[in-house]
């Protein structure tokens, strides 16, 4: 009984603290359920993109690949390029859809903001800011996951390469994949951030004219 009271009191105290000392909030709420799904989906897409980019970089540095005919090299480069572009388009589409959802979810807030004298730019900035945060976070988490995957797969990749290439140096995989993967690791959050900003800006600018 005493333990139950103690737990209940602690819970009440926590509630009161939360009520009395809140953290500063954004005007456009971005802790809605759809934002979490959006973050998960974009993170997975960034992960896929990092794997695609890393595998592409491994492939083009592979001596066996370079020995293939130019047309086959070009075709495979095109295929990789198309896959990476497709992932970027999907991210842009998801952000556009997410911006629509965000504006619908925050209609009352946006209506209130326009009534109290918010300029279109003020609203646009607030909406873009929430998606920029999602973009950079998803990019960082996705590319970190990709980097981890490559690091974990490194011994297997090395074994497979040695199996297929008798004269390959031991440092080959390290030189071509790990270092390049750091470049991929840095580029993905930047790309994702830019795509999120551009897609949400174009969408919100179009919608906000009707408010």
């Amino acid at each position, binding site marked *: 009984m005493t333990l139950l009271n103690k737990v209940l009191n602690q819970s009440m105290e926590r509630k009161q603290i939360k*009520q*009395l*000392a*809140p953290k*500063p*909030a954004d*005007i456009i*709420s971005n*802790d809605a359920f759809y934002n979490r799904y959006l973050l998960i989906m974009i993170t997975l897409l960034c992960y896929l993109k990092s794997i695609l980019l890393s595998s592409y970089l491994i492939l083009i540095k592979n001596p066996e690949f370079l020995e293939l005919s130019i047309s086959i090299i070009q075709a495979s480069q095109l295929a990789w390029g198309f896959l990476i572009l497709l992932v970027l388009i999907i991210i842009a589409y998801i952000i556009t859809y997410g911006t629509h959802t965000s504006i619908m979810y925050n209609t*009352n*807030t946006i209506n*209130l*903001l*326009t*009534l*109290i*004298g*918010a*300029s*279109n730019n*003020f609203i646009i900035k607030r909406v873009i800011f929430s998606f920029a945060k999602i973009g950079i976070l998803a990019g960082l988490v996705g590319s970190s996951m990709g980097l981890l995957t490559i690091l974990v797969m490194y011994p297997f990749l090395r074994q497979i390469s040695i199996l297929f290439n008798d004269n390959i140096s031991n440092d080959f995989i390290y030189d071509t994949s790990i270092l390049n993967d750091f470049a991929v690791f840095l580029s993905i959050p930047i790309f994702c951030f830019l795509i999120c900003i551009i897609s949400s800006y174009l969408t919100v600018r179009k919608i906000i*004219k009707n408010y």
Partner: protein
Amino acid sequence: MAINNNLIKLENVYHRYNITRDIFTDISLDIVKGGFYFITGSSGSGKTTLLKLISSALSPSNGDIFFLGNKINQVPKNELYKIKRQIGFVFQDFRLLPHLTTYENVALPLRVHDKNEKDYKKDVVELLSWVNLEHCIHTYPNYLSGGEQQRAAIARAVVTSPKIILADEPTGNVDQSNSSKILTLFQEMNKLGTTIVIATHDEKLLSDINATIIEIADKKINLNKRK
């Protein structure tokens, strides 16, 4: 040379929502600086529409609306926010943002006007004590009573020192005691020179205050001055 005392002027205004529904036909109205106005009329007569027209939230189907001598119809849509910044709004349903605290809700128009928090923090706290909400500065709107929420909404409307306050049924969701408190706040603001326009069908409010009554009937408006 006569001094123009008009804050808002409606000239031969027509408004319709669709082809079959006329709300106003040929109405003209002068709202003078420092005046106290009540808009009355039956439900659906167009009280809220008139407030929206005054606030430039709606454009008239025909006719002209002037704000401080400037024709609102000629102001580009992306510049209308400059006019709206001179108007304070109070709504029947309060419209406080649930994810912001009372303080953040009241300070919202100042944030929107790109003011620095250091400059306004003290003023907002003082304003909250003026509306007797100093005890719930960090409380979220869902934890406030109806009267407290409406007082917070009034504080939000006056925080930018607007030239005019438009209130749509401000006492519609509160009890009699809170209704009197809210009315007192409006009277105090009016004494300081703010023009007040309240849309209501609360007869008690109309009898308590000396004000100009704008009565909407049959798509027209009639003015009655009470002294």
